[in-house]
C-alpha cells in the first residue's frame, strides 16, 4: 500500500469521527479564537486534565504556534503532545466557516516506542558492522557498496570512496577471478539464505595478497526497494599457511613412510594394521586397501612365533614392562610363504600404536648360510692341505735326515778306503792307479759337498723364522774375517758400510751373507787388486736395497735368470769350484724374509748382487 493511499484513509476516518466526536475513543477537541478550548470529548478531557487544563482554558503555547502556521482544510498540520507517560499525535483541521480548529489526536505511545527501538536497533547494527573485528561490506542489488567497515579498509588499504561499487572492488582486489565474483555477487540478491562464497585471494593496496573466506547473506530491502546484502570476510591467510605447512609436512612424512626402504606399517593396540606402505603390501602379498584397517598383524607371523610376539605386543604397551625393539622373526605371506624378516618396532610416544619396519633378510640369511658352508668347506680344505703339507714336510724332513746320514756314510767309506789303499799299498800302485784313486776321492768329496749344500738349501725352507735386530755390517765383517783366515794369501780390499741393521733371522741371513761375500771372494780370486763392497741404497717405497759389489769375473746378463736356480753354474768347475747351490740358498733366505734378490754384471767387469728385506 502506498503512502498516498494511507493518507486518504486517515482523512476519511477523521471525517467520520468528526461527526461523532463524543463516541470517538481517541481525543478530539475544538479550539476557538484566542486558543480557547471550547469542546473536548472524554478522551480529550482526560488528556487536558493530565496537562492541568480543562474546557475554557487556553491551549499551551506550542499548540498556538502550530495554529499560527495557518493550516488550511486542504493542508492540515500535525503536532505531538506529550501528556504524562503518553504521547499523542494530533492533526489540526481548521474549519474556517465556523472559526475553529478541530484537533484529532491519536495515542502513539507504543508506536513511538517501537520507532525508537528500531532506531536503537539500527544504530546497534551500524555499530556492530563498524566495530566488527572482521571485514564487512553492505551492498545493494545493482552493485552499490553501501558500507565497508573499518577493518575492511584497514586490511585492504582501499578507502570506502575507492570502492563505490562491487565492480570497483573486484577490479581492485582480484586478479583473475574478479568476473566470477561479480557474477556471484549479482546472484546473491536473488537468494534468501546465507551463502558460503568460499575463499578468494585478495590483493591489497600495497600489493600483499591475503586469503579471504566470504560469507554473504541477503538482509532485506532498502527503502527504495533494492535488495540489501551483507558480505562478511574472514582472513584465513595464516590458517591456510599453517594448513599448507601441515599438509606439506604430512606429505613429507607420507613420502618418508613410503620410501623407508623397509616394509613399514602402523599397528594399533588390537594388533590391527591401520596403515601400511607399498613395501609392506608387497611383503604381505595383498593390496593396501585389503590390509589397512583389517589385517591382524598375527596373521603374517609364523605360528611358532605368535606367542612370543603377542607377548611383546602386550608388554610394549604395559606400564613398567619392556619388549625388544629389534629382532628377527619368521614372517608368513598371505600366500603362506615363509620369509625371514628383521623387525624394528616402537610404540609412537603418547599413543597405543606402534610403527614397525620390516626388512626381508631371507636372501641375506641364505647367502650367509651358503657363505658359512663355503667357509667351512674352505677351512676343511685348508686343514686337509695343511695336513698334507705337514705330512709332505715331515716326509721331506725324514728324507733330508736320511740323506744326511745314509748318503754320506757310503761316501765316507769310498773316500776312506780309497785313501787306505793309497796309504797301505802305495808300492803296488802305479801313477795311473793313484790318479784314479785320487779322482775317486775327489768325486766322493764333491758329492759330500753337494749333499751338504742341498741339505742346507732344504733346511732354509724348513726352519722357522726368528726375527731379531741384527747388525748386518758386523756380521759381514765376521764373514770377511773368516774368509781372510781361510785364504791368508789373498789380498782383497773390503769396504763395508757401517751400522746397517735389520730385523731378520740371524742364522739364515748369515748363510745368505756368507754365500754372497763368499762368491765375491771366490770370483775375484784371479785379480791382484780385488775389491768387494757391501753397502745399501734407498729403494722404492722407503725400502733399503742392500748390495754386494765385486770387481771379479762377473757374468753374462743373458744368463742372469739362471743364477739363482739350484745346480745352475755360469763357470766351469776347474775355473771356479762350486756346487751351484749357494745363490739358490741366498734367494730362499731373502724370499723367506719377504724380500727379493737380483743381480747385474758383465763378463770380467764384476757383479753386483742386490737384495731387499721385508723388515716388519
Amino acid at each position: 500500500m502506498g503512502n498516498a493511499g494511507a493518507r486518504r484513509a486517515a482523512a476519511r476516518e477523521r471525517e467520520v469521527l468528526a461527526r461523532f466526536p463524543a463516541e470517538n475513543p481517541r481525543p478530539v477537541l475544538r479550539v476557538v479564537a484566542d486558543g480557547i478550548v471550547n469542546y473536548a470529548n472524554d478522551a480529550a478531557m482526560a488528556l487536558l486534565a493530565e496537562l492541568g487544563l480543562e474546557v475554557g482554558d487556553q491551549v499551551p503555547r506550542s499548540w498556538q504556534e502550530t495554529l499560527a502556521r495557518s493550516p488550511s482544510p486542504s493542508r492540515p498540520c500535525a503536532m505531538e503532545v506529550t501528556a504524562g507517560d503518553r504521547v499523542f499525535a494530533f492533526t489540526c483541521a481548521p474549519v474556517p466557516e465556523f472559526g475553529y480548529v478541530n484537533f484529532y489526536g491519536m495515542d502513539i505511545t507504543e508506536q513511538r516506542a517501537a520507532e525508537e527501538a528500531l532506531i536503537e536497533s539500527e544504530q546497534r547494527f551500524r555499530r556492530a558492522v563498524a566495530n566488527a573485528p572482521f571485514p564487512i561490506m553492505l551492498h545493494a542489488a545493482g552493485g552499490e557498496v553501501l558500507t565497508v567497515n573499518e577493518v575492511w579498509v584497514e586490511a585492504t588499504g582501499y578507502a570506502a570512496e575507492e570502492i563505490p561499487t562491487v565492480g570497483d572492488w573486484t577490479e581492485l582486489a582480484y586478479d583473475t577471478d574478479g568476473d566470477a565474483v561479480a557474477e556471484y555477487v549479482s546472484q546473491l540478491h536473488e537468494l534468501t539464505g546465507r551463502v558460503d562464497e568460499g575463499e578468494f585471494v585478495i590483493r591489497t593496496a600495497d600489493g600483499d595478497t591475503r586469503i579471504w573466506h566470504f560469507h554473504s547473506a541477503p538482509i532485506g530491502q532498502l527503502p527504495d526497494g533494492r535488495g540489501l546484502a551483507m558480505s562478511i570476510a574472514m582472513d584465513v591467510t595464516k590458517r591456510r599457511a599453517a594448513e599448507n605447512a601441515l599438509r606439506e609436512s604430512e606429505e613429507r612424512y607420507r613420502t618418508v613412510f613410503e620410501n623407508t626402504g623397509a616394509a613399514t606399517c602402523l599397528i594399533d593396540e588390537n594388533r590391527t594394521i591401520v596403515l601400511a606402505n607399498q613395501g609392506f603390501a608387497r611383503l604381505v602379498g595383498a593390496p593396501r586397501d585389503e590390509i589397512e584397517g583389517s589385517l591382524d598383524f598375527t596373521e603374517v607371523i609364523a605360528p611358532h612365533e605368535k606367542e612370543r610376539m603377542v607377548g611383546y605386543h602386550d608388554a610394549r604397551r604395559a606400564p613398567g614392562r619392556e619388549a625388544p625393539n629389534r629382532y628377527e622373526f619368521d614372517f608368513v605371506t598371505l600366500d603362506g610363504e615363509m620369509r625371514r624378516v628383521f623387525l624394528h618396532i616402537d610404540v609412537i610416544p603418547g599413543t597405543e600404536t606402534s610403527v614397525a619396519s620390516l626388512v626381508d633378510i631371507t636372501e641375506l640369511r641364505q647367502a650367509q648360510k651358503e657363505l658359512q658352508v663355503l667357509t667351512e668347506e674352505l677351512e676343511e680344505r685348508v686343514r686337509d692341505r695343511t695336513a698334507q703339507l705337514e705330512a709332505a714336510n715331515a716326509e721331506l724332513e725324514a728324507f733330508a735326515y736320511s740323506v744326511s746320514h745314509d748318503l754320506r756314510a757310503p761316501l765316507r767309506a769310498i773316500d776312506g778306503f780309497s785313501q787306505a789303499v793309497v796309504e797301505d799299498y802305495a808300492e803296488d800302485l802305479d801313477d795311473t792307479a793313484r790318479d784314479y784313486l785320487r779322482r775317486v776321492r775327489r768325486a766322493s768329496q764333491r758329492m759330500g759337498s753337494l749333499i751338504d749344500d742341498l741339505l742346507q738349501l732344504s733346511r732354509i725352507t724348513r726352519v722357522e723364522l726368528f726375527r731379531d735386530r741384527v747388525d748386518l755390517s758386523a756380521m759381514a765383517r765376521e764373514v770377511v774375517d773368516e774368509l781372510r783366515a781361510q785364504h791368508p794369501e789373498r789380498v782383497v780390499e773390503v769396504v763395508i758400510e757401517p751400522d746397517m741393521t735389520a730385523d731378520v733371522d740371524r742364522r739364515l741371513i748369515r748363510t745368505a751373507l756368507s754365500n754372497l761375500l763368499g762368491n765375491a771372494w771366490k770370483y775375484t780370486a784371479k785379480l791382484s787388486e780385488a775389491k768387494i763392497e757391501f753397502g745399501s741404497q734407498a729403494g722404492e717405497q722407503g725400502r733399503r736395497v742392500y748390495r754386494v759389489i765385486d770387481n771379479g769375473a762377473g757374468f753374462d746378463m743373458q744368463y742372469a735368470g739362471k743364477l739363482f736356480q739350484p745346480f745352475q753354474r755360469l763357470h766351469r768347475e776347474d775355473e771356479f769350484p762350486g756346487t751351484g747351490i749357494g745363490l739358490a740358498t741366498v734367494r730362499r733366505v731373502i724370499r723367506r724374509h719377504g724380500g727379493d734378490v737380483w743381480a747385474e754384471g758383465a763378463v770380467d767387469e764384476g757383479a753386483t748382487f742386490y737384495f731387499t728385506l721385508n723388515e716388519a
Partner: protein
Amino acid sequence: MADGVILLVEDNPDDVELTMRGLRQGQIANEVVVARDGVEALDYLWCRGEWSERDVEEAPAVVLLDIQLPKIDGLEVLEQIRSDPRTRPLPVVMLTSSNEERDLIGSYDLGANSFVRKPVDFEQFAEAVRQLGLYWLVINEPAPPGGAGSD
C-alpha cells in the same frame, strides 16, 4: 794315556773300520769294544747278556756313540746311560754323519759331552778321531769309580 776301553757303538762296518784306522793312525792303542746296536751297547755297559761276566766297575774311558742305530738309537742309548747312576759319569761323544740341528740339540740336552760330525774326507775324519782320543783319553780326567754321579 788312560788304559781304559773305548766303546764304539756303530752298526756300519765300514765306519767301524775307518774309525779303528783313524785311532791307529792317531797312535791310540786302547782296546776298542764295538757294539753293533744300542742293545749291545747297554748290555756291555750294564754287564748284561753276552757281557754279564764283566765287572761293572770297569767303566770304559769313553763311549763313541753313533746316533742312527738299529733297535735302540743313539739318543735313547745316551738317555739310558745318563739315567743310570752307574753309567751317568761316562764321557759320551756323539759321533754321527748327521749335521741336523735337532740331533745336535737333542744330544746336548740328553747330556752328551761332545758332538762330532763324521766328515766324508777320510783325512779330516782321521784327524777328528785322533783329536777325540787325545782329549778324552789323555787330557780329560775321568770321574773316579763309584764317585760323583753314583748316588
